[in-house]
């Protein structure tokens, strides 16, 4: 009876302990989730604006006097024609009262400079346009875009605002004539970097990331799997293999920037491979990913039950047959999961790539493994460190794209694990 009382007393204490522990756990999770929500929602609120851009409707008159500077009306003329002036005149015809040169220049800055080339291409294709007046939606410049998307900015004092009161008045006039609209920002998905936010896109760095990761995968997967299989299944257990094992585990913990320095010293300075190229970036990231995949390979080889090996060996399979016919196929889901996790780490990596020059300002979408390019996280870093206000939204949108790819890759890893995992 006495004993039972004691147990009852201590049981209460133990139960209290348990519920306290539960509360700590819940608090921890709640904090983590709320931080995640704050980060994701602020990125999303900012980034979603980058997926739209602002267009202004103008009556564009393709003035033959401006386009054809020579008498024989050559194609060359169109190529070198002053389309800036055509745009300026179109704006001027909407605001006929403006005549001051400085004000006109400000007005013509409403339209993105990329439209000059677009108009030129349009005329090159349809020469009959010369002399005609047509209505076109032209891409607005970034500052107009930013003001249009963030109406609260109009309330800021003039000296702190992106545009002056005068420009704001013009914008409101365009608005009241219903000559402004927001539309899908195609540039963001087809272009590379640019000094003008409205012309900058993520595609260039996406392609760069793709090339880089491709090189990483091609190099690291076979090497790491071979190394993992050798160490786990075939190598004798001695001091030397122990030494290698310890070093591989240490390598996984080496800060990534060290791999970048190594790449700079060896791939660029000794082997003279091209700077800023995905092939070098891929090689550096492969070095970084190798230990991750080796460790995953060894762990999943270890997880294959010894009974399967015994069954194969008992039937007279050689060591090699045992590994290739049974052990490796069974551990493949684990190996692939580890590989994808290693690859998504590589996708998010920027520090080592800064070392080998993948931080350059690159306007062209890379076409091969040797072209200068950048990668998603570096592009985000570049945009973040640029002053122009329009890049704020692009940065957030870039983060969204990067996160989407990371989630996609991890989703594939989870899928593989659940789909192909064998139960014993």
């Amino acid at each position, binding site marked *: 009876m006495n004993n039972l009382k004691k147990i009852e007393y201590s049981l209460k204490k133990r139960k209290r302990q348990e519920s306290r522990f539960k509360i700590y756990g819940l608090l921890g999770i709640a904090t983590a989730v709320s931080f995640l929500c704050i980060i994701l929602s602020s990125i999303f609120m900012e980034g979603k604006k980058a997926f739209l851009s602002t267009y202004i409707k103008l009556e564009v008159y393709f003035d033959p006097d401006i386009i054809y500077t020579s008498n024989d009306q050559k194609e060359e003329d169109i190529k070198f024609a002053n389309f800036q002036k055509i745009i300026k005149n179109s704006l001027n015809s909407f605001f006929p009262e403006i005549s001051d040169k400085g004000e006109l220049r400000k007005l013509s800055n409403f339209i993105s400079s990329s439209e000059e080339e677009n108009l030129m291409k349009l005329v090159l294709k349809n020469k009959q346009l010369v002399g005609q007046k047509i209505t076109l939606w032209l891409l607005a410049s970034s500052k107009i875009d930013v003001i249009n998307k963030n109406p609260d900015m109009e309330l800021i004092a003039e000296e702190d605002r992106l545009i002056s009161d005068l420009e704001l008045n013009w914008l409101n006039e365009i608005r009241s004539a219903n000559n402004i609209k927001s539309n899908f920002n195609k540039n963001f998905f087809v272009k590379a970097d640019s000094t003008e936010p409205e012309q900058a896109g993520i595609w260039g760095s996406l392609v760069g990331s793709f090339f880089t990761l491709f090189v990483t995968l091609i190099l690291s997967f076979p090497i790491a799997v071979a190394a993992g299989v050798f160490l786990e299944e075939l190598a004798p257990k001695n001091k030397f293999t122990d030494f290698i094992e310890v070093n591989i585990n240490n390598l996984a913990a080496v800060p990534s920037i060290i791999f970048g320095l190594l790449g700079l010293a060896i791939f660029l300075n000794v082997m003279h491979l091209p700077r800023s190229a995905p092939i070098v970036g891929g090689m550096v990231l492969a070095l970084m990913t190798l230990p991750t995949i080796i460790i995953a390979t060894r762990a999943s080889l270890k997880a294959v039950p010894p009974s*399967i090996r*015994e069954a194969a060996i008992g039937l007279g*399979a050689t060591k090699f047959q045992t590994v290739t016919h049974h052990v490796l196929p069974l551990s493949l889901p684990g190996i692939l999961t580890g590989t994808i996790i290693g690859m998504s780490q590589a996708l998010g990596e920027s520090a080592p790539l800064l070392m080998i020059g993948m931080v350059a300002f690159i306007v062209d979408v890379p076409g091969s493994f040797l072209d200068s390019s950048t990668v998603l996280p570096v592009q985000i870093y570049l945009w973040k460190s640029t002053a122009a206000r329009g890049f704020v939204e692009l940065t957030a949108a870039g983060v969204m794209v990067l996160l989407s790819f990371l989630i996609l890759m991890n989703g594939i890893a989870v899928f593989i694990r659940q789909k192909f995992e064998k139960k014993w």
Partner: protein
Amino acid sequence: MTEKIKIKSKNVNVYYGQKKALDKINLEIPTNKVTALIGPSGCGKSTFLRCINRMNDTIDICRIEGKIIVDEEDIYSTEVDPVLLRAKIGMVFQKPNPFPKSIFDNVAYGPKIHGIVNSNDELEELVIYSLKKAGLFGEVKDRLNDTGTSLSGGQQQRLCIARAIAISPQIILMDEPCSALDPIATAIIEELIDELAKNFTIVIVTHSMQQAARVSQQTAFFHMGSLIEVGRTDQIFSTPSQKKTQDYITGKIG
């Protein structure tokens, strides 16, 4: 005994690292008979069994002294390839361990890697023959493509037996093949062992004396790494010559 001897061990010592697991084992195993190895847990029955097909080679710390002669040949001599040896000596393990592949592929694996069959028809014939021999064909003939792991424990163990006999070994080693099975599945396997003894030399480790009495013609009693006594099964269980054997079969040690 006047039978032909299939396996003969001469002064076999086995060490795991510094630890001696078997001490001077001298044992003769007759052809096409069932020999049972009995003894308390940890006495070295499995260790001895695994010496016969050189399964212990896969354990780094395991060292073997002495000779094991199968068909007049010392299997630990340098000319013998353990892979070839294992094709001649099949093994069935304590826990059923089918490959996580189809029933058909489980049985077909051995013949395939050894290049025993020349055509798919021949392979199919051999798989069916082996499944029939293992008394499993009737139960699985409609689902040869299901995975082996989807079978019941007893069926899995018979699948492992079918897998072993598909490469027509001369000897089958069984390490407590029924310890993970229920009594009904055990009875089926015991019957099967009787049947298989017509064509194979069988060495079976068992912790159940009743099982040893039921299936074997010869019984060897191990205790703490030594072979205490070996003889005809009926004689071992009725009139053992050693005190320790007597104690074990009457339940005083074990």
